[in-house]
């Protein structure tokens, strides 16, 4: 059976600019999908490297999100904490094609059907 390399998680218009939506993964880490004010899409594990705050609920500005718990700024492209804070959250490869959002299946569900994205 052929399984596509990319996992279709729905149309882009389900996420308003400057906001994020969540994608729980059974047995794995919840994923947060972000749409910046300038319409770039990114996906991260939904856990701040600091105290596991839900990054999906933070304020999005430029290419970063500010964690709602303690205001760490996390890069949406690298998952790394900015400024003097140190830490990194896994990035889930994402692409947008024909108005739909795709996540790299392997990064969400491992080859054996096992979720792989784990927070640091």
């Amino acid at each position, binding site marked *: 059976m052929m399984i596509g390399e990319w*996992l279709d*998680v*729905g149309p882009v*218009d*389900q*996420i*308003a*600019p*400057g*906001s994020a*939506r*969540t*994608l*729980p*993964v*059974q*047995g*794995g880490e919840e*994923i947060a*999908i972000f749409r*910046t*004010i*300038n*319409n*770039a899409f*990114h996906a991260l594990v939904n856990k701040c490297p600091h*105290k*596991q*705050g*839900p990054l999906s*609920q*933070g*304020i*999005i*500005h*430029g*290419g*970063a999100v*500010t964690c*709602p*718990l303690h*205001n760490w*700024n996390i*890069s*949406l*492209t*690298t998952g790394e904490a*900015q400024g003097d804070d140190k830490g990194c959250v896994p990035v889930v490869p994402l692409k947008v*094609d*024909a108005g739909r959002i795709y996540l790299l299946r392997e990064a*969400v*569900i491992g080859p*054996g*059907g*096992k*979720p792989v994205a784990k927070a640091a």
Partner: protein
Amino acid sequence: MNAPMSFESQGQEGVTRERLVVIGNGMAGCRAVEEILGRDADRFDIAIFGAEPRVNYNRIMLSPVLAGEKTFDEIVINSAQWYEENGIELISGDPVVEIDRKTQTVIAESGRVEPYDRLLIATGSDPFIIPVPGKDLPGVITFRDLDDVDKMLAAAERGGPNGEAGRAVVIGGGLLGLEAAHGLTLRGMKVTVVHLMPTLMERQLDEAAGWLLKEELERRGQTILTGADTAELYEEGGHVAGVRLKDGRDIPADIVVMAVGIRPATGLAKSAGLEVERGIMVDDHMVTSDPAIMAVGECVQHRGLCYGLVAPLWEMCRALADYATGEPSGYEGSVTSTKLKVSGIDVFSAGDFSGGDAAEDIVMRDASRGIYKRVVVKDNRLVGAVLYGDTADGNWYFDLLKKGEDIADIREALIFGQAFASGGALADPNAAVAALSDDAEICGCNGVSKAKVVATINAGAHSLDAVRSQCKASASCGSCTGLVESLLALTLGGEVEAGPTTLCKCTSFTHGDVRRLIIEKELKAIPQVMQELHWTTPDGCATCRPALNYYLLCAWPGEYEDDQKSRFVNERMHANIQKDGTYSVVPRMWGGLTNPQELRAIADAAEKYGARTVKVTGGQRIDLFGIRKEDLPAIWADLNAAGMVSGHAYGKALRTVKTCVGSEWCRFGTQDSTGLGVKIERMTWGSWMPHKFKIAVSGCPRNCAEATIKDFGVVCVDSGYELHVAGNGGIKVRATDLLCKVETEEEALQICAAFIQFYREDAYYLERTAPWVERVGLDYVKSALFDDPESVRKLAARFRFSQQHSQDDPWARRASGEAAELHQHLAEVRPFQLENA
């Protein structure tokens, strides 16, 4: 109808030429033919099928035709003569309806059959029609060909039913839609643009530039509705009569132009069995899955991409011609830029300007000239650019971007453009300022010369703020801040004093400056503030966005539309986020009063939604912990049903009014403190503040409600009410200051409203009343309230007006389904478990 011609015509030396049939007489098809002819004029015997009954014209010039700037003749690319001279047979007005790959023939609508050796598909794209009721009504048109333009011109000519200007609605605020809107406006129609996304041209422009464009178009008389989702097109007498939006608004219209986008026209190719995804799949030589068939233009998909701009099309045609004439070169995809005039406004964009933090933004804004420039740099290379108002350097940036040149050396001056960046000494900003003459104007807003600024600095103004207050340079729009800073550095060397703390790193202005300028310049939207006050980032940060949202909300009640994406999570979710990502829910209990029905509803909700902790708060109400974001609308619906509303325990807002039982029960009570507390809470709930705001009313000086550590405290005495302000029981305990004493409840309520409003208008965002009063002084507050006998009344009136727009229960709106996406997951992933895998 053209007569069929023989397909085995002879070449110069009697060799049978290959028959090339082109489907599509548009820009791509004809350009490909031109490129082939340019390489080898005798190689093919060529026929072109066109669906439109006319010669090839420049489709991107349809806008000027609509606008009346050009005639059709002026936009014709290839006249009938060209076809004739090159021996090309043009079969126009007879579209191909079928490709038979077995017999290598195409079949036209008229039944005509045409054989081919090589086929070129250049069918372009079709306008995308949004699938709403009424889309097929007469009067609904697209903007794709000359017939569409003719229909629009006829409608403009006709005008409205009573001889007034006709009304047009353009659905789509992208490039095409705005050009249609511009043309129709010039033709005298009243135009409304309906755009689904929050900003115009979001694919080419960032938020800041999109906002500038919107404002300019509105200034020119168009109505622009963003975030507007079309529900249906309604009719009257069998003709379209308007657009109904999903939010219920109706926009009457004599014509509706659908310009939401295009999609590759792949129907023919698909039914012929060619490989098609979004577009017709082609390789680097523009050959489809059938080696005898090529495709080019907007109908193709190359390396996963479909293009809708003209530049890639030219590059494709070159690769195609190279291949078809036996010298294959290969097309490797295009980096695109957009440089255009929308309604005479220059905009440019190229590359990736979506941000990302490995990328750094360099932003320059010039509010007085309406200019916004932003370049995005990553690893010392330019990766994106957005220009608005001045696009002179667009090509230079695009060139730097395509070549991937190292820009480290010119980085400082990059944003000022090519002339400046390559100007040697000028690249050092201080040197450039030093070279200015004494009478050079530094601050255009306030007309301050260089000599004046230097004199001010020499007279003791050793900080930016001191210069601003003493000679007004850089005190208005701030665009000359950099120049003033250079002058400070040049004049004082290392002795420049740090100025007061700015609002955040995105601006050189303080909170106070920003508040003042929002009023002075009547700024009414976040992107507008950022543009006019020269923000150095494209869309601010987590510090300035919430602050600006509050300042605008406070300055323009009822007019400013709250920006949810600038709200801290608690104020977006209307509940308090906890360390595990769940929320706590606190229903309002007026003055700390409750009853069995409310308590029963709270108990039921706690059980139903699994509240793991139920806690009585310091503000005399009940907090339910551990509620999941998905359950919030449901628990609110249950609490609403029992008559309770949001307690705003999560907001920079009025929190609670704590009371003691007062004269109703207490043997010491002097006044009805509970009743007054309820009245105060009814008056003040729902109001947004610079920070959280707590009130208490104690029935006697024993002060059981702890009124003297609240933001506003009332202590009842026999002769009336003592009103106290600016207390705090937090990190730094501060007892209140006595503001005044009044005799009646009405006066107490009035002064409470006035004090709150003055705090709302004067304090900085995230400044509680205690540090605010410590900073400005109690006398300043007293003076603002009491010096002018009218002040209290005016302030209280402003507060009550503002309250008219904020006293609706946010929980009820969410419980009724508003913003449901904030509470729902996008989807869920349940991995397929393989047994013993």
